[in-house]
Each structure stands twice: as C-alpha cells, then as structure tokens.
C-alpha cells in the first residue's frame, strides 16, 4: 500500500498547532466560510457523495444519517459529538483533540449548518484532561473571533458549542447512553426506535457523530467529495449491504509492536502491512499470534488472517464483528490467549450498564468462568458454555438493548473458535496463572 500524504494528521506535532492563529494561517475555517455559502442540502449531498461512514465504530453513512432528521422542524436540533473514546486500544480522537482541535470544531460548525442546529455538545471522557483544556481554549478563541455565538460573520447563523465531561463509564460512548448521561441521568442506553435523529437529546432531534468523523467533514468540504472518494475500497459486490470504505482513516496500533502509534492510511490497509510497514514488526523477534482489528469488541483475527483488508467489510470475512474503531492491538506468540480473553471479559463485566439481564449476567459469568479456568479449576465443557453464553447476548440475537453485549460476546466466540487447542491444553494442564495484581483488583471490586 503506497503511503499517502497525511491530511487529518497533517498539523499534528507542528509548533502551536492547537491555536486559532496557526490554524487560520494554514487555511483553517475556509471550509466553514465555503459551507456558509452553500445550502444545508448541498452540504449534506457533498457528504453523502463522499461516501463518508462514521468513524466511531458502527460505520453508518454520515450524510444518510443526517437526512433522517425531520424536515422543517421548528427546532431545536442538537449535534452531540461523541468524544467518549473508551474502546480499549483506541486513541486517535485524543490525538486530534489535543493537537488540532480546530479541524474538529470546523467540522462541527459545518455540520451544524448542514443539519440546522444552533447547539452542539461535545461529550468528552473525563480522563482526557489535556483534550479538555485544549478544546476549551479553542472554543474561547472562536467566540472571541466572532466565529461562534450570534450572527456568525454576519450570515445570521447562530451557534454555541459546549464541552460536557463524562465520568469514566464506557457505556457513555453508546449514543443513547451518551444522551442519557448528558441529560444528567445514569447512562442507560435507550430502546430504539425512536432513533436519536427523531427523538434524542432533551427529546429533540439529535445527530450523534464521532470526533474523527467531524474532522473528515472539514476536509470533504475543503477538498471535495471526489478527493475523499479517491481513497479506499469500493463496495464489495458479494455483500449487498456494504456501502464501501472511502477516505483516510486513523489506525491506532498498540500492544506487541515496535512502533506503536496513530497512522493515517486510506481505508483498506491489511494488518500485515500495518505491523510490518508502519509498526516496525513485533518486538524481540517474536511472531504475531493474534490481532484485535478494531478495539476488543470486534474480536480477534489469527496469524493466518493478517492479509484481510481492514476496511468496513474486511474483518467480517474473518468472523470478526467489524472494523470498529480500527484500533489494532497486536498479541505476540509468547502470550496466552487465555489471559488475553480474560482481560477482555473483565472489561465488559466491569462496563456493562446492567439494565439487560443477558448482558449483566452474561458478562459476569464469562469473567467468572475464565477466572475459574485460569485458577486451574476449568473443565473442557466450560468452552462450550462460554460460547453458548457469548452467543446468546446482544442485539444480533435480539436479547439486549445495546451493542456492548455483542462486543462482549465476540472476543469470546472468536478466541474459542480460533484458538481452541490452546484453551483445551491449558485446561488439561490445570495450571494456575492468576497474578497478584489480578487478585488485588478482584478484591477491590
């Protein structure tokens, strides 16, 4: 895959990259000015034509989502920006917010004009202290420059952007959990329909979009839909539901890799290319055992699935849930999949919001069964039990309200299917591998 000139990351690491002055010097807010001269319908069409799909995990076409808003609504309409970024392995939103907040804010401003919204909230996970400070300052600069507030640039367009800090709960990233949390309640996801575009924040029509999605909108208006569409992978003719995977994507690379980091690459790079060409290979001359393709909710790819392209359609071919956040975590061949899977199961047991029984109980039991296995007390039939529990929870089997549950089941299903001999061998050995730190944490919660 030829390396491409970074666009989303172009200004990252440059001196004073977060300031309004340098952003404008580099051509910033020209896209917004252009957008103000376009009609909302024209902007929506441009975004639709670009093929942009949401970067937050579900990959829903952005322009299409915007058309679900009721026509001629009296308002208010809200744009809620999802900056909760909590999917293990994912950190690209953080880099954008810390290093180049104005390209996100410009995307938000363009999007608000497109969907006829005068209020946007950025829901930011509380752990991102620097992102908070940088965004706060950037927003203040915009008000001072007359680019936010009333009658922006004399066009009659009013817009306020507010920062709202979360409180360390993964479920606040699920869009209706986010809405409930913003409203001041526990983050219990809502039953859909109604979808947020019809009835969302404060019971008003609401669009929820991810931080990286907003950055893409800026560049689509700046450079045009054709530029965006010139990168990536067209729809798979064998999958009628694939809408194609266009544009640049911020892949996060971490785990057992020599050069972990965030890489901007057109959608469709393979894990092998990422690991070898970008990540400098696996440390200590080890080999890849497994790869998480897009955050742990998406499951695992094995070492013989590394040539599958990481576009929206690719990971599914390897039995994974999807591309997710394109956060690639590399696991080397000295690591036990039993340990890795326990780590994933513990995460979901900790983060299930508890309102659906299959998810609350299922995540807790998967963690307990894996703990038992790692205590040396497992039995071979536990593997089928785990698979059965994992398969019975989620939106796909139709037993839960949100997708956290599908994401909790997926790594379990993938790991046991793809690494079964390793699990069987471990159980037969009767080894106990629970570490001191894990015991301490288990006692704490």
């Amino acid at each position: 895959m030829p390396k491409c000139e970074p666009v989303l990351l172009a200004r990252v690491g440059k001196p004073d990259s977060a300031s309004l002055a340098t952003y404008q010097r580099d051509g910033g807010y020209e896209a917004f000015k252009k957008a103000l001269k376009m009609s909302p319908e024209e902007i929506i069409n441009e975004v639709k034509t670009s093929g942009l799909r949401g970067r937050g995990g579900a990959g829903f076409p952005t322009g299409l989502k915007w058309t679900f808003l009721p026509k001629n609504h009296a308002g208010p309409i809200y744009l809620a920006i999802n900056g909760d970024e909590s999917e293990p392995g994912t950190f690209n939103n953080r880099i954008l917010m810390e290093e180049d907040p104005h390209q996100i804010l410009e995307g938000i401003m363009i999007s608000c004009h497109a969907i006829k919204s005068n209020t946007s909230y950025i829901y930011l996970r509380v752990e991102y202290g620097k992102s908070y400070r940088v965004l706060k300052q950037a927003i203040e600069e915009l008000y001072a420059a007359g680019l936010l507030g009333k009658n922006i640039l004399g066009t009659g367009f009013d817009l306020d952007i507010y920062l709202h800090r979360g409180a360390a709960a993964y479920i606040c990233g699920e869009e209706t959990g986010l809405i409930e949390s913003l409203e001041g309640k526990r983050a219990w996801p809502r039953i859909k329909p109604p979808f947020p575009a019809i009835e969302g924040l404060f019971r008003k029509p609401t669009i929820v979009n991810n931080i990286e999605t907003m950055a893409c909108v800026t560049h689509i208006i700046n450079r045009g839909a054709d530029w965006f569409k010139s990168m990536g992978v067209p729809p798979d003719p064998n999958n009628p539901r694939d809408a194609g995977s266009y544009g640049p994507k911020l892949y996060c690379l971490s785990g057992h890799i020599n050069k972990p980091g965030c890489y901007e690459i057109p959608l469709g790079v393979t894990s092998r290319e990422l690991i070898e060409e970008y990540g400098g290979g696996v440390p200590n001359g080890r080999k890849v055992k497994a790869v998480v393709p897009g955050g742990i909710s998406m499951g695992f790819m094995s070492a013989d699935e590394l040539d599958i392209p990481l576009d929206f359609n690719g990971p599914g071919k390897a039995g994974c849930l999807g591309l997710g956040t394109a956060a690639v975590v590399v696991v080397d061949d000295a690591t036990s999949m039993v340990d890795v899977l326990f780590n994933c199961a513990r995460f979901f047991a900790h983060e299930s919001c508890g309102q659906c029984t299959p998810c609350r109980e299922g995540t807790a039991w998967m963690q307990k069964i894996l703990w038992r296995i790692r205590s040396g007390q497992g039995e071979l039939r536990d593997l089928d039990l785990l698979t059965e529990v994992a398969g019975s929870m989620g939106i796909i089997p139709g037993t839960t309200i949100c997708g956290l549950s599908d994401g909790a089941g997926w790594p379990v299903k993938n790991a046991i299917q793809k690494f079964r001999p390793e699990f069987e061998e471990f159980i037969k050995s009767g080894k106990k591998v629970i570490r001191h730190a894990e015991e301490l944490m288990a006692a704490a919660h």
Partner: protein
Amino acid sequence: MQAAKPVERRDVMAVLSEELKEKIRAEFPKYPNKRAVTLPALHIVQDATRSVSLEAIREIAELLELHPAEVHDTMSFYGYFRDEKHPLGKHRVWVCRSISCMLRGGEDLLADLCEKWNVKPGETTEDGKITLEFGECLGVCEGAPCVLVDEDCHPCMTAQKVDEILKKS
C-alpha cells in the same frame, strides 16, 4: 390526637460554599434544563471537596430543583464519584489495566505501586496524599503501560517514574 410533627431536617452545616454554588449556577445557561447540570455539579463539588457527601447531594438537588434521590441515582451509577466515607486523597492515580497496557506490564505496575504505597486498589495512603485506583483503557495505548495522575496521563510508566511525577506535583 396530635398531628405528627414534620420530620425535622438535621441541622447540618451547608457544605457548598457560595462560590461553589455560583460555579454550578454558571452552568445553567448551557442547557435547556437544570437536570443536565448534574454531572457538571458533581464534578465541581468533587474537585473542590474530594468527595460528594450526602449533604452536598441535597444541596445540589436544591439548586437543580431535583429530588436528592435523583442526584444520588446518577452519582452512584458512575464509579468516578466518591461518597464522604471514601474521599479522594490529594492526588488521584489510575493505572490502566486494559489490553494494550496489560500486554506491556500494566497490571504488575499496579501491584508494584500497591506495595510501594502500602495500599490496595481503591485506597488512599495513610498521609492522605494519594488515592490509587485501576482504570480501564485510558486512551494512551501507544504509551502502554500508562498512568493517569489527576488530569494528565503519562506514557511508558514504571513505579519509580510515577513516584517522581508525584513528588513534583
């Protein structure tokens, strides 16, 4: 028969200073209703007083025109907020235990810090200086293992490096 006396509210000193109340009120214009100020209010109070006491919950509820149980319901959902029996120390330290950090020694780092500071996860050192907790993916996975100290996350940590950061804070 005598009418039952109304239950008298115990006379507790107000815990929210006028300054804190003003900070909370300053959030009102951002939202179409006051309930949405619940999380901002909880943050403001916990940042200043290191926990959110029952009395603080009552006072927040009064400001937001909610029932205290509504504020408590929200607060208790998020493990982030602490009641008065479990106040935070001067510094809050989170060690990431999720996948990328675990693969690079994050959990063992937590155990090292527990030993060094003589606390269990969730506890505060005897001198009240440090509360040590585990966190789930802190979004700095390229710097695994990473540790959040108050508002900032530090990459590629060891127990010694964390100690040094805290000495400077």
